C-alpha cells in the first residue's frame, strides 16, 4: 500500500502530510521546552539576591565558559545554514552538493556534542567547598596533581587526605550579579592575570565538598536538565539527518520528490533545535 500525500498536497491542508506531522511534533516540543523555561524562571525569581556561593542559595552567574558557549552557538547556527543549503541543493538537482552540506551539518552536530561533553566534564571537576565556619569557596581540587571528578567529603576522607589542596577561583566580574560592587582586590588580581590561588584546607575544617552537579544547586539542576535534553535533540537530529543523507539516500533515485520533502522536514526539526539554543544560551551562560 502506498502512503498517501508524501508528495502531493492533501486537499484540506494544502500540504504534504509529513510537514503537518513535523509541525504538530514541534508544537509538542514548544510545550516541553516551555515547561522547562517556566521552571527556570521560577527557580531564578525565588533565589535571593547576592553573590553565590557567599549567599548559599543565591543564583550563580558566569560559571559557564562564555567563549566556548559562544563558539558552540556559532557551530549550531552554521549547521542550520548548511541543512537548508542541502535542501536547496536537492531542489537544484545537485546531489553531490547536497551530500557535502549534509556532511558539514552532521560534523557540526557532533562537534557541538563533543564541546558540550568537554564542558560537562569541566563542571564535574569544579567544586563548592563549605568550611565549618560557614565560609564557602569554589575551585578545583588538586589531589597529587590530579583533578578528581564527582568527589564528596567522603572521598576526601577515604583518600586519607589531611590537608586538601584547592585551586580556589578568583571570581571574574561575570560571577557577580548585575549592580553588585566587585571587590577591589578582585579587579587587581585579574589585571595581574591571576585567576586562581592555591589554598590548603584542613579536612577537619571542611563541612562539605560538592561538585557542580544537579544536586548541588537548583542552577545546576536546571542547567544540566535543559542542556542535556537539548543535547539529546541534537543527537537524535544528527542520527536522522545521517540516515537521510547517507544510509537512506537511495530514495533520491526512486522517489526524489519525497526524498526532498524528507530533508525539508528533517531540516525543520534541526532549525527548532537551533531555536531552543538561541534562548538557552543567553539564559544559562550570560544572565
Amino acid at each position, binding site marked *: 500500500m502506498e502512503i498517501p500525500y508524501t508528495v502531493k498536497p492533501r486537499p484540506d491542508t494544502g500540504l504534504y502530510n509529513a510537514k503537518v506531522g513535523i509541525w504538530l511534533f514541534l508544537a509538542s516540543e514548544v510545550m516541553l521546552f516551555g515547561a522547562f523555561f517556566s521552571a527556570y524562571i*521560577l527557580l531564578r525569581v525565588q533565589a535571593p539576591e547576592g553573590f553565590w556561593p557567599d549567599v548559599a542559595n543565591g543564583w550563580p552567574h558566569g560559571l559557564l565558559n562564555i567563549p566556548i558557549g559562544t563558539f558552540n552557538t556559532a557551530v549550531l547556527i552554521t549547521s542550520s545554514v548548511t541543512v537548508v543549503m542541502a535542501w536547496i541543493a536537492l531542489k537544484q538537482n545537485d546531489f553531490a552538493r547536497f551530500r557535502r552540506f549534509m556532511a558539514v551539518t552532521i560534523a557540526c552536530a557532533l562537534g557541538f556534542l563533543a564541546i558540550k561533553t568537554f564542558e560537562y566534564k569541566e563542571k564535574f571537576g569544579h567544586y563548592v567547598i563549605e568550611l565549618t565556619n560557614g565560609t564557602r569557596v569554589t575551585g578545583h581540587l588538586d589531589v597529587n596533581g590530579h583533578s578528581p571528578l564527582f568527589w564528596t567529603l567522603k572521598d576526601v576522607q577515604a583518600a586519607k587526605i589531611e590537608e586538601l589542596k584547592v585551586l580556589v577561583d578568583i571570581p571574574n566580574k561575570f560571577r557577580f550579579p548585575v549592580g553588585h560592587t566587585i571587590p577591589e582586590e578582585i579587579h587587581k588580581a585579574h589585571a595581574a592575570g591571576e585567576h586562581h590561588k592555591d589554598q590548603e584546607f584542613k579536612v577537619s575544617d571542611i563541612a562539605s565538598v560538592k561538585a557542580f552537579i544537579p544536586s548541588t544547586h537548583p542552577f545546576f539542576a536546571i542547567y544540566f536538565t535543559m542542556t542535556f535534553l537539548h543535547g539529546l535533540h541534537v543527537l537524535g537530529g544528527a542520527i536522522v539527518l545521517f540516515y537521510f543523507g547517507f544510509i537512506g539516500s537511495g530514495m533520491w533515485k526512486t522517489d526524489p520528490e519525497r526524498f526532498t520533502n524528507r530533508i525539508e522536514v528533517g531540516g525543520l526539526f534541526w532549525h527548532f533545535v537551533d531555536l531552543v539554543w538561541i534562548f538557552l544560551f543567553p539564559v544559562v551562560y550570560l544572565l
Partner: protein
Amino acid sequence: MSDSKHSGAEAAAGHHHHDYDFAAHKKVYWVVGGSLLVGTLITVLAREWEFSSVALTIAVALFIASIKAFLVCAYFMHLLSEKKAIYLILVTTGAFAIAMVALILLSDKDPVSGTRAKIHYVP
C-alpha cells in the same frame, strides 16, 4: 557520487521554480546565517556593557534572542509564506504555551499557603 545530476529529480525542483530563484534564496540564507552570528556576538558583548539593572540586562539579551528566533522561523523555517494549517497549529500552540507559563508564574505570585516550594541549600 558520480550520478549526482540525477535526471529523475527535476520534479523535486518543482516545475514552477527556476535556478534564478534558488540563487536569490541561497543569498538570503547566507545573510540570515551571518546575521544570527552577529546577533550572538552582540548578545555576548552586551553582557560587557554592564547595564544598571538586572531587568534591563535580561530584556536586552532576550530582545536580541527574539530577533534571532524570528529570523530562524521566518527564513529557515519558511514561516513567512506557509499554509494556513501550519499557522493554525502555531497560534494554538502559542496560546497554550503562554497560558502554561502565565498560570505557573501567576500561581507563584499568589501561592496557596503551605504549597510553595522553597529552595533549600543542604550543606
